[in-house]
């Protein structure tokens, strides 16, 4: 029990640090709103390493903290929608079986963007933002792939580590 709390703290700290590092990296994909989503790396690893319930909690805590620190009211809503939908889809795919970590991560990346798009539709009150769908799907595919490969390499090195401690 004590260990679980400590591990959860470490996961939260890592996710927060990655959110921060993300704001430092001046990578621009030339498209507004498209970014790597480094913090998702921690969420993917959490999905495979800690209980699903805690992964959800981690995701929410991460978004709230990062939002209050680096973002604004809107960015929190966007991120929360994206993060929750993304984690849900990833959990479903993982449970369904037959998908590799990369596949799960790709689905996560894509649905992260779709979740944000839904919020954008509600906020702007128009379906016109739908023109952004191809861009967001492709971006989610690519970033999800990168995050998936990174997660795989990290999980490979953490193969013997268990949070239950």
């Amino acid at each position, binding site marked *: 029990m004590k260990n679980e709390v400590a591990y959860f703290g470490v996961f939260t700290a890592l996710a927060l640090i990655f959110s921060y590092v993300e704001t430092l990296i001046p990578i621009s994909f030339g498209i507004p709103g498209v970014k790597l989503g480094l913090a998702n790396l921690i969420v993917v690893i959490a999905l495979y390493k800690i209980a699903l319930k805690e992964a959800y909690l981690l995701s929410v805590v991460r978004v709230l903290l990062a*939002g209050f620190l*680096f973002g604004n009211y809107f960015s929190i809503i966007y991120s929360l929608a*994206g993060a929750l939908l993304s984690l849900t889809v990833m959990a479903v795919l993982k449970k369904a079986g037959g998908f590799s*970590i990369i596949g799960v991560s790709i689905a996560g990346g894509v649905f992260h963007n779709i979740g944000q798009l839904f919020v954008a539709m509600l906020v702007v009150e128009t379906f016109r933002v739908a023109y952004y769908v191809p861009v967001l799907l492709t971006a989610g595919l690519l970033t999800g792939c990168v995050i998936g490969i990174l997660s795989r390499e990290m999980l490979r090195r953490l193969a013997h580590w268990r949070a239950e401690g």
Partner: protein
Amino acid sequence: MKLELKKFHLKEKIDLQKKDWVLISIIIFVAGLAFLLHHFIGGKGAGCVTVKVEGEIQGVYSLAEDQVIEINDGTNILEIRNGTADVTGADCPDKLCVNQKAISKNGESIICLPNKVVVTVDSSENSEFDAVAQ
């Protein structure tokens, strides 16, 4: 402590599986479909410009199709090309409207004071979102 990478035996699948490729194919297919749909059907929603002369709307033109419009019986020439609108000709002496850059984003406008012509982009389509998600 010696750092050793023990032989990898995760119970999860490591390499890309058949289902992964199916997933990737579906995503690319949907993205392509959405692109084509938008390209062929949604073209008319690509934003439009409203032309006003002395405050009265003279016409609304789509930015999606290239066209040349004579405003006010030819006092100003509005050219729409590649989704941007530009005033390319005017009979006024100062040519300020001609020198303004082409417009395409929501709310942008070109104004010719001598002829009382106002050209405004009227669509949320091309406006840039200013909230950045973390």
